[in-house]
């Protein structure tokens, strides 16, 4: 069950006033190996890293990110979002070994 990969988490306020800019923090487990290192036997460790992060709010595109192997292991990402209406923030992470993970967080806007 504990595979040290995936298991994404989003931390964001549950509610905000209309027009307020809220901070969204996210974390996901991924080795983010560069392909430039070797294991104990001297065999190259293939690159294994998250390449894209897509953020939507109620299915409308908010932010798309492309990552290189220079992003640290277990990548952290924080960004901001203007609270306009209540809805669901969704993040989808995809890595170069066909791994796909998603997480959601609901926001109530008053």
């Amino acid at each position: 069950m504990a595979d040290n990969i995936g298991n994404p988490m989003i931390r964001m306020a549950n509610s905000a006033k209309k027009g307020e800019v809220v901070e969204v923090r996210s974390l996901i487990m991924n080795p983010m190996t560069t392909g430039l290192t070797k294991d104990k036997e001297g065999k190259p460790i293939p690159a294994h890293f998250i390449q894209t992060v897509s953020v939507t709010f109620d299915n409308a595109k908010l932010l798309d990110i492309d990552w290189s192997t220079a992003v640290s292991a277990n990548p952290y990402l924080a960004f901001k979002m203007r609270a306009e209406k209540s809805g669901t923030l969704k993040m989808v992470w995809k890595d170069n070994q066909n791994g796909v993970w998603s997480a959601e967080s609901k926001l109530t806007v008053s």
Partner: protein
Amino acid sequence: MKKTIQRRQFLGTSLVAGAAVTLAGGTLLRSGAALADNVAGWPAKAFDAKALDQAMAASVGKSNVPVSPKVKLTAPTIAENGGAVPVTIEIDSPMTADDYVSTVWLFVDHNPTPLASQFDLTPALGAAYFQQRIKMAKTDNVRVIAKTNKGELMASAPREVKVTIGGCGG
């Protein structure tokens, strides 16, 4: 395998087997990334560029961008660990439908592949603000370039981060 090569050719390079080698910068046999399935739309050419000006040409489109105080990049003076350097990017912009930052690029000058991240923004973000942790191979400059919806390009001043070998690591 053929399907994979087709997906990676989206940037318009020719669908010839040899092109796959060029795309990966001649490291088809060495780098695992060239053999794995790149996610559709991932700009491999820009990310595989090995020198800063190449990486900038392949992503931003030019390598000479004026520095603007609107583009702020915060990073530590001395990194606690070169494998996890916290960086904060903040660009002064109203982020309205008429005036917003549309793309942001983050570079580490002398990393094996200098382009670290590319952000594609929408005005709904309300603020052009990002925080990430990145890997730096050695003491080096980190820099950010931003493009607005009007096509205006602006850069942060380069920020030097010292990366040293720890004494207690292990």
